[in-house]
């Protein structure tokens, strides 16, 4: 099986096949023979040429959350034919108008930018209070605020859209 995988904004070409109890895998040009052992739901013990690694992994469809040595990664699989196109499409969409959504649940303290405002990189957009803390959501690019979807004092859920910048 051959697929593309992204981890932390890097894309890798992955080829793999089952190999006894484990698997053979080639990531870009690096080949590994992996002995895997899954003892309880999400814990995997991995042996690669005798080296032992403890990995936690779970997910569904094409997205997996993996913890390796105290760090966690989101790993995305792509169908090389269909998905890449979809990805490209959504990226271009993102570039023409940028959607600001709440990264966490919280209460909106204040909008620092209003409809029509020109914002540039690092400009504050929204101040969100969560867990007794005021957090400022900043802009990473240039654009004009097109629409605001919430009001001050609103309690928002994670992922709820707050603002569109064009």
């Amino acid at each position: 099986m051959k697929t593309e995988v992204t981890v932390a904004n890097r894309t890798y070409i992955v080829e793999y096949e089952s190999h006894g109890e484990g698997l053979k895998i080639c990531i870009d040009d690096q080949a590994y023979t992996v002995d895997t052992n899954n003892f309880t739901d999400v814990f995997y013990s991995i042996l690669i040429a005798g080296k032992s690694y403890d990995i936690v992994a779970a997910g569904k469809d094409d997205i997996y959350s993996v913890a390796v040595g105290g760090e966690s990664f989101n790993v995305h699989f792509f169908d090389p034919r269909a998905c890449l196109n979809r990805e490209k499409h959504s990226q271009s969409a993102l570039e023409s108008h940028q959607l600001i959504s709440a990264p966490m649940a919280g209460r909106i303290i204040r909008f620092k930018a209003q409809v029509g405002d020109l914002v540039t990189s690092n400009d504050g957009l929204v101040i969100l209070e969560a867990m007794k803390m005021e957090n400022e959501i900043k802009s990473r690019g240039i654009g004009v605020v097109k629409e605001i979807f919430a009001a001050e004092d609103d309690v928002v859920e994670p992922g709820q859209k707050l603002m569109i910048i064009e």
Partner: protein
Amino acid sequence: MFKKILIANRGEIAVRIIRTCRELGVQTVAVYSEADRGSLHVRYADEAYCIGPAPAVESYLDAEAILAVARSTHAEAIHPGYGFLSENAAFAKKCVEHDVVFIGPDSTVIENMGNKTVARQIMIHHGIPIIPGATDATEECADALKVAHDIGFPVMLKAASGGGGKGMRIVHSAEELTDAFLAVRREAYASFADSRIFVEKYFSTPRHIEVQVMADNHGNAVHLYERECSIQRRYQKVVEECPSVFVDDALRKRLTKTALHITTVVGYSGAGTVEFLVDQDKNHYFLEMNTRIQVEHSVTELVTGVDMVKEQLLVASGSPLSINQDQIKAVGAAIECRIYAEDPEADFLPAPGPLKKITFPEGPGVRIDSGVYSGWQVSRHYDPMIAKIATWGRDRNEARIRMLRALDECVIYGVKTNVKLHKQILTDQSFIDGNYSTKFIAERIDSLPQDDLFSHHLAIIGALCARLKTAETGQHSMDENMLQQHDSWRMSGKYQFWASRF
């Protein structure tokens, strides 16, 4: 000793208190908000009663609701833990009025120490050094400017009723002062309903060192040595040590003597902490006195062997302290790392969510205090602390490498944590040398190290294992809400002011 007490808190400190109560045969009553029905403190207590909705102000801060539970359960005393009502003089007073023992000092002591102006005046009166600056708080920008000119820039603006880092700002010049003053005043009012601000001398490489004291109502007062709490992020402690590598015998003698002096003159009772700022030249200045148990009390317990909650209960029930100064020996060294659910890639924003799997470290010299378990959700309503990991070693370096080993054993899956930050701190040469100030994190730990390629490869292998398992068994090992969200917009912590960290 009491037969039954109520614990007016949640999370790890409530569990910590229940542990000692169990050892002393004291029955425990937990109170909980609607968000906390499955919380560990509810599970561990002998009794548990709901006192209101998730927001703290409607539950853990609701003095009447808590006292009603105390009354109906015949709890003889209330342990407030840290945060919430622990330094609320009105609550302490109300307890006494309701014939319930408040486990802490007298309400007037709480009131005096909670009011920075009064506290400073007491210190000045008794010849205890305080930080140069205003001894009176002000709501007026003009006053602030005048003081700043007197003591010279840089100065620190501090909310009079603030604490735990909330409502603080450094100002380097007269130009910056007005904006900063207004911001702090606004935050101070919003958080504490008190707009008064202190202006004080700002030190460039200060150490934050505190002395643990305990006093009973029989005239005994002891210190339990110092803690080094300079490793802070935005005025919030991240790593604490006992003893401080910066404190030599002469300074230790001065610090503990001053702390005991304060304990005596304010008429203290129970466990308290005197916080000092220590400058490069080892001058010490009184900062404040915390009239409650601290988060970081575990390092003191590891080094002295004293169960501080046990002593709190002894004192509150009228017994003398079970230890005198000669019996309190500091053996070895201890370090504590506060493990938080926060996102290091998003400037350490709180990252509430489901703790799908947790494995805590074990083995020699490791102490765990947590209020969570695999399956529990870190709530957005409260402090996102997952656990305190503390290690003890024969010396500081043994404690340090043991902590690194412990952090490596720690598996927390489901939410992002600051574990990697701790590893960075503990392996930084300045930390190893003990050569650091409260600026340490800001100056030394400015960016996350790059992932190495191999960790990406391992992540892919792990993801592939999970994917093949799903394909094989047709079952997802876990539901999808465990997947951590990434947002393409960065969040800044510039306006992060914590009210609930201690």
